[in-house]
Every structure is written in C-alpha cells, then in structure tokens.
C-alpha cells in the first residue's frame, strides 16, 4: 500500500462541510486534502446542457453510486434487513460539491427551541408529553452561539429571502416566528408561483403568517464577499437533482472551494473512496485508507481526520474503523454511535386541482413558493395535543417535470391508465397543487444505525443498516398538519381536492427528503453523545464529524443552513484553539 505525504488535515469527500472547513483551515495556513469518491465537476462545462429529466430525475445520474455501496433497511429489529437496491426515500450525492450540487437550495435556520427541545417541552408541558421510547435531547449549542455563523454563511453564499426578525424587531413581510437575524438576507426573495400567492392570501385569511420561502439560490446578480459575481436564477425549472449551469444555486463550487484552492494549500483527490480511518498506538487517528481510481489502496496520513461525508458515510466510517483501542469503532467506546437516527416527514397530505388554470409550475424551483411557520415547533400551543414539535408548511414548488409528476394525478383513487387518465392529465397537469409539510422527526431508542451482518459493499466492508420507522409522534403530528393543510386548501377554492389523513408506514422507495440525521450526535458529555459541540469525537479527539450526523433529532426544516453554521463554528474553533493544543478536547 502506497503511503502519501502527510497533510495537516484530511477530509472525507469534497462536499459542503469539507469545503467550508478546508477554506477556513487553508486560509489559516494548514494543508488540507479531500478524498472525494466521485468526479470533479463544475458549472462549465459540466452543467451547461443538462435539462434532461430522464437522465437526472428518473435515472438519478448524479446520485451516490449505490451499485458500489448502498444501505440496508428494516422497519424494526424483528424484521429482516434488505439492501436499498434502487434510489428511493433519500438521494445522497457524489462528486466534488457532493449533494450540494443537486440540492434544492431551501435555506432554514433551526430556531432557539430546536436547540433546547427537550428541556423546553418538559419545562412547559411536563415529562408526559414526550413520546414513548423518546431519545430526544438538547443540543450542546444554542441559536445565539450559532447566529454569527448563520449570518456569515448566508452572506457568503448569497441567500435570498425576506427577513422576519431583525435583531428582535419583527419585519413585515417576513416570518414573524423566525429567530433574530443580525443581518437581513443579502438578496430579496425569489419570485413565487401563482398558487403560492393564492396560498398566501388564503392562509392570511385564516389568520396565519405566510412569507416567501428563503433560499440558497440567488434572486438577482450578486457579488459575494470574496468578489465573485454570480448570475441570478433564471427559473429554468431544472434545479433539484441537477447542477446549476449559471451558478445561481449556491454550492461549494460557487463559494468555498475556489477560496480554498486559491491558497495553494488545498488539494482534492477525485474518484477515490475512503475505506476506513486508521488509528495509531495511542488510539488517535493517523490518517485514512482510500481506494484510488485504479482500485489500489493508499494511505493518506494526517494530523486531523474530518468526517465530512454524508450522514451515513460518517457513521459507517466510525463503525468500521476498528482497532485494539477502538474495538467497536471510533467514538463508540460507550455504544453511542448509530443512535438517534432520524429522517423527515416530507409529505403532501393535500392535493387540489384548479380547472381551466395554467400555473406554469414547470418554471422555478423549490424556493419559488410560500412558507408558513405558524405550526413550526412550539409556535402553537401543544397543551391539548398528542405530539411535540411541528412542521413547516409549504404552498407548492415549481420545477415540475412531466415524467416525475404525472403519477400524482388523478387526485383521489382514480385509475392511472386509459383514456380517462389521459383526459385528467390534459385537464389538470398544470393546475394540480399539493400542500406539503416538512415535519420534525423525533429520535427514539428503536431507530438506529449499525453494521449489516449480511450485505457488503464492493470494497468488502459491511453495509450500514438503518432500523427506522415512523414513531407515534410522527403519526400524530402528521394527522394534525394534514387538517391544517386541508383548511388552507379549502380556502384556496379548488375545483376538487383530496386529503390523505393518516401517515402510512415508513418505506424506502418514496422520496421523503435527503435529510437523514443522527448516528454521531453531539452532546454535553461522553455519556450522552459521540462528539462535543464542535463535532470532536470524545474518545478520539483528532477526529471531527461534520454534518447532520451530529443532530440529536430533526427539526421541521431543512438541515443545510444549520450544518453549514456548525462547520463555520468548528472551523473557527480549530483555527483559533485546536492547533495550539492539538489532540485535546475543545472547551
């Protein structure tokens, strides 16, 4: 096995948390190498001719190569696990930029109550409100601590939106439930589609507080703090699952990777798969072993290892990196790795049709819509409810592609073939409107990740196994939100509508967001977590985990803004303090 020249820091992958940390660390003078499984790719020439729904949306060209490595799933410990053979309920990425190339750009900050979730509900409603089997816990970091990092990220990438709370002052037109922002969004909100304006009007009549969806997609040309000038969004309608050919959708490539490369101290090694983290005689990490594009193993020594892959990549690397000092894997000396696995309740309980309208819903993207946070977390009284936390409610996204949307019609139980179906599509394809919820997903003792005993990846390592199902909180939350969505749709005056009142069992084939969280959660001490608030692994302090694997439970909002803010914070702490006293836990 070839051993490469040692670097200061090695990262798993070249996705967004890797790029943020590489930028912070290389600017401070450290050498960083990213070992990236997929290809190098850039807006030009790679995304300039890609409006192909078959290749990118149906066949999912950009997604993680699950023919080489997938994940197995079972609903509970009594059931057998089977591998996820084709893409379904989540869409991890590969290649330089990671999933942040094909992401949607929805940009939410978790709120103060998301961070002290458990103590907030217990103090306000009593212990009994917690769902059975609950494993939720407070984060070891607060919104106030993260606010400067949220703001820095939002300005560096050029976010778009209407601020709702500026330094504690409620700003009309924005989200009045938003946490305080120290600066507004640098760009105005994206344009909204017609049904989203109808949704706003209807929900205002109901007394709610709709506002334009915040986004990591530029609503206009923007000069970022580094001097990059980027195009605004063209509303082309090929956004999620595609790379943006004009760099209007923010990504590591638009922002952090060029800054890191500019230092001359950043290196990306594409087409190389990290297989395991290596630890030395003292139990500390010494680097990573990866498989190069020729199939040969190489060793990249490093003083610090950053687990900056997708949630499941990071958790698996902890579990498979076993040694005499870490017989159950890195970070797992107290059997904490794999716990607190959560996903997201991403469902459209209500569909309405509006005959004789043509809403142009193939234009735009997932941010060209209206959001509502009246039922987010504890923005509404839970005293008489059978669940905790809440959901974002969304009007309807754009970027509607025929091949992936005709299956939604007819609404209700009509058959989906034959002349009648054809007439339904003719009549309603561009006027059917879902209302969608993005619900919080609580952690439970019965949902977790471990190594599959049967199935292996092409590198000979076991697959990571997900044991995951919706819990009682998810079902009860969904039922409540479905009613609220139905009330809003009724107020919008549809020709016809259908409501799915109950949440079905969890499955791995219906897409329900790529927000898999937990498994290497952060906490206040080694007894309740794998890492400290910086993602630094308690039992191996020169290994850091980034991303949503750190989340103790999931909120009713997209995870990207929060994981980016956490990476900014960790980067600053490493630069300011870690290297003064390496291999010691950061206070």
């Amino acid at each position: 096995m070839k051993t490469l020249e040692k670097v200061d820091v090695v990262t798993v992958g070249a996705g967004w948390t890797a790029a943020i940390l590489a930028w912070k660390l290389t600017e401070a003078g450290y050498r960083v190498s990213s070992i990236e499984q997929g290809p190098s790719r850039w807006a030009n020439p790679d995304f300039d001719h890609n409006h192909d729904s078959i290749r990118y949306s149906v066949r999912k060209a950009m997604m993680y190569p699950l023919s080489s490595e997938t994940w197995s799933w079972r609903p509970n410990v009594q059931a057998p696990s089977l591998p996820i053979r084709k893409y379904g309920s989540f869409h991890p990425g590969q290649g330089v930029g990671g999933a942040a190339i094909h992401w949607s750009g929805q940009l939410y900050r978790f709120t103060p109550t998301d961070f002290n979730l458990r103590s907030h509900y217990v103090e306000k409603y009593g212990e009994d409100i917690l769902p059975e089997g609950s494993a939720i816990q407070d984060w070891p970091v607060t919104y106030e601590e993260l606010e400067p990092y949220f703001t820095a990220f939002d300005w560096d990438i050029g976010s778009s939106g209407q601020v709702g709370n500026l330094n504690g002052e409620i700003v009309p037109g924005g989200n009045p439930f938003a946490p305080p922002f120290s600066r507004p969004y640098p760009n105005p909100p994206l344009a909204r589609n017609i049904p989203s304006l109808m949704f706003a009007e209807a929900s205002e009549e109901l007394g709610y507080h709709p506002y334009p969806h915040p986004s990591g997609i530029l609503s206009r040309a923007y000069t970022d703090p580094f001097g990059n000038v980027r195009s605004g969004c063209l509303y082309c309608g090929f956004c999620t699952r595609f790379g943006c050919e004009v760099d209007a959708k923010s990504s590591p490539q638009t922002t952090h990777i060029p800054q890191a490369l500019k230092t001359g101290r950043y290196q990306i090694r594409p087409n190389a798969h990290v297989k395991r983290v290596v630890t030395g005689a003292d139990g500390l990490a010494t680097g990573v072993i990866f498989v190069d594009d020729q199939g040969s193993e190489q060793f990249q020594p490093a003083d610090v290892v950053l687990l900056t892959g997708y949630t499941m990549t990071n958790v698996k690397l902890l579990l498979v990196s076993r040694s005499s000092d870490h017989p159950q894997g890195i970070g797992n000396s107290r059997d904490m790795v794999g716990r607190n696995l959560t996903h997201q309740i991403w469902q459209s309980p209500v569909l309405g049709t509006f005959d004789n309208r043509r809403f142009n819903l193939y234009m735009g993207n997932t941010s060209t819509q209206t959001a509502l946070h009246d039922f987010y977390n504890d923005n509404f009284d839970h005293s008489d409810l059978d669940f905790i936390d809440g959901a974002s409610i969304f009007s309807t996204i754009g970027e509607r592609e025929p091949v992936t949307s005709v299956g939604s019609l007819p609404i209700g139980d009509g058959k989906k073939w034959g002349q009648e179906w054809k007439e339904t599509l003719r009549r309603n394809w561009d006027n059917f409107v879902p209302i969608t919820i993005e619900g919080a997903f609580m952690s439970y003792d019965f949902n977790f990740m471990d190594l599959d005993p049967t199935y292996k990846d092409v590198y000979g390592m076991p697959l990571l196994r997900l044991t995951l199902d919706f819990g009682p909180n998810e079902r009860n939350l969904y039922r409540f939100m479905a009613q609220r969505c139905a009330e809003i749709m009724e107020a919008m005056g549809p020709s016809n509508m259908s409501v799915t009142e109950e949440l079905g069992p969890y499955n791995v084939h219906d897409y329900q967001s790529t927000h898999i969280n937990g498994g290497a959660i952060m906490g206040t001490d080694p007894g309740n977590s794998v890492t400290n608030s910086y993602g630094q692994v308690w039992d191996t302090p020169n290994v850091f985990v980034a991303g949503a694997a750190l989340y103790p439970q999931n909120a009713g909002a997209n995870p990207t803004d929060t994981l980016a803010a956490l990476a900014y914070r960790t980067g600053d702490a490493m630069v300011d303090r870690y290297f003064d006293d390496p291999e010691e836990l950061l206070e």
Partner: protein
Amino acid sequence: MPSSTTSRTRRLTRRRFLRGVGALAAVTMTGAALSCGPISKDDEFGGILGKPIPEPEQYPEVPWTPTVRPDRSILRSFTLDQARTVDALTARIIPGTQDDPGAREAEVVVYIDNMLSFNNGSVERFYGQPPYAKTYQGDTPPEQESGPYQYVWVASDQIDRYGPQGVLSPVAVYQSGIAALNTFADNEYGEMFADLSEDEQDEIVTMMADGDDISTFTEPSASDFFETVRQHTIQGYFGDPAYGGNQDYAGWRLIGYPGAQRGYTPEEMHTDGSGLLHQTQGIIEMHQFHPGEPHDNVIRPVSGSDDDEVRSLLLEQICGPSTLQGVNVEDARES
C-alpha cells in the same frame, strides 16, 4: 512523491486554480489586464488531482443524453412480435388517435426498445448483491426449504416497503412478461395480445392493473409487469424526444409543457399559460450554453472554464452591457 506526479500536479494546480477562480478574476476586473490572483506557491501540493472526466463519462452507469433521436426503423432489443405486444400495451395505457396522439403515435415502444439496448436495460444504478428476498404469507417465515440456496424471508405484506428487490434485468422482465401476456391472451381469446380488440385488451389490462392473479405470470407478476410498462410508458411519452418517444412532443402538447427551456421571467411565472408562448423544444433543440457563446441576461458561471479565450469573452460580456432582470452588473457589484 515521484517527480512525474509532481509536475502533473503542479500543472493541474494551475489549470484548476484558474478553473475555479479565473472567471471571477475576470469579472471582478474592470478594464485592467486579466490577473490570475495568487497561484499556489507550493510545487508539491494543491489543486485537483487527476485528469478531468468529461461529463458524459462521469456517471457511466447512466446512459448519456442522446444527441440525435434513435432511428425508429431499427429494433435493438425486441423481436417484431415483442415490439407489437409492447406497443399494444402502451397504447392501452395512453390511448390515442392520429389527431390526438397516445403512446403508440408517440412511438413509446421506440423509447423502451432503445432503453433495453443499454446494459440489458439497467439504465440506473442498482445494488445487485445477494441474497435476495422471498416472501411468505402468515405470521412466521417457513422453515428454510431444502436445497442449497439462501433467501431472506420477508412477510408478503411488508415487502413493498423495502423498494424494488427483483433479481431480473429489465430485458428479462420484458421477455418473461411479454411471453406470459401472450400465453394468457392466447389461452383466453385465442390470439396474441396485439391482435385482440381494444375492449379485450382492456379486460386483460384491468386484471393486471388490479393485481388479479394471472396464472401464466410468475416472475414478474402480472401487476409488477404492468407497473413496469406503465412507468416506462410515462417516461417514453413524457420524456425528452431525444430518447425515442414523445414524437412531435405529443406528451408535452397534451399537458401543456414547453420542454427544455433556458429560463423564464418572474412575469411569465405570474401569467397563466405564458410558458406555452415559448416554442416547444427538446434538449437537442435547446441552444448550447457553452463558454464563450453570448447569451442574453446571463452572467457566466464563476465555477467554469479556464480557457483564455473564454475568459476574455467573459470579461467582455460581463463588463459590457449585460443585464440580468434589470439588475446591471455594475449595480450588483456595488450592492
């Protein structure tokens, strides 16, 4: 590091550095000579290693977007009888006439035939490692059958939650499903499926769609086969014509979709039906967006080409009169 690697790394460092920041160096300059900014001072390290892979080859398991429509007169996977059978089935899923084209008129069978000609129809990534699943009815799995083969037993009312677990390639699914369909048609009506009347065909399709047990089907089941063909009919009828179906944009015209466009304005988004004022086009007709080719209302990507000629065109374009939705670049820079 060996010296050959070193020199390649250094060269790529410079190339890739420019790739990453060349464009922004260009756009942040106004009139001054192009500057490259700080290039790596480190000869041993930095940049993106290896030779870039062209986009068509970046994800080799998924076929590249066709650049020309496939020749409809050539069957690449089906026999003539197989093609007739599939064509007849798609025509019941989306019926049509010459004036109101359905799947047959849109040549959906050409889409399916061409799809199956790539890697036995495996056009998406698929994790194919055994052991495979086998279902059981009732509360407990049966004793392992005698014999050498290993299965994972899954309750039949739970298997759908696990997503596709089939073992057969798409080509094998079609071969088996077509044979079973024709055998059933022959048994019940005395003719191949394609030769039955539309009403007779609809009777069979209804059974398949409703999940009725049709004894001539084994793997795939009748309902699985129907669902496979239905999904592929949707892809062929509503997908880009470059893939062989959606002839004359039949699917897009039905629902009112203008196809692959470069962009729309907020005003268009706010006006019912305005997108249909664009000429309907597929990806082959969509104008190229390659570096250096001017285009209205677009500022060139930051993460893009490192080609000198392109950068100078970029400079000209961005520092010239280019505007974007009323936002002048100069204003954007000051914002």
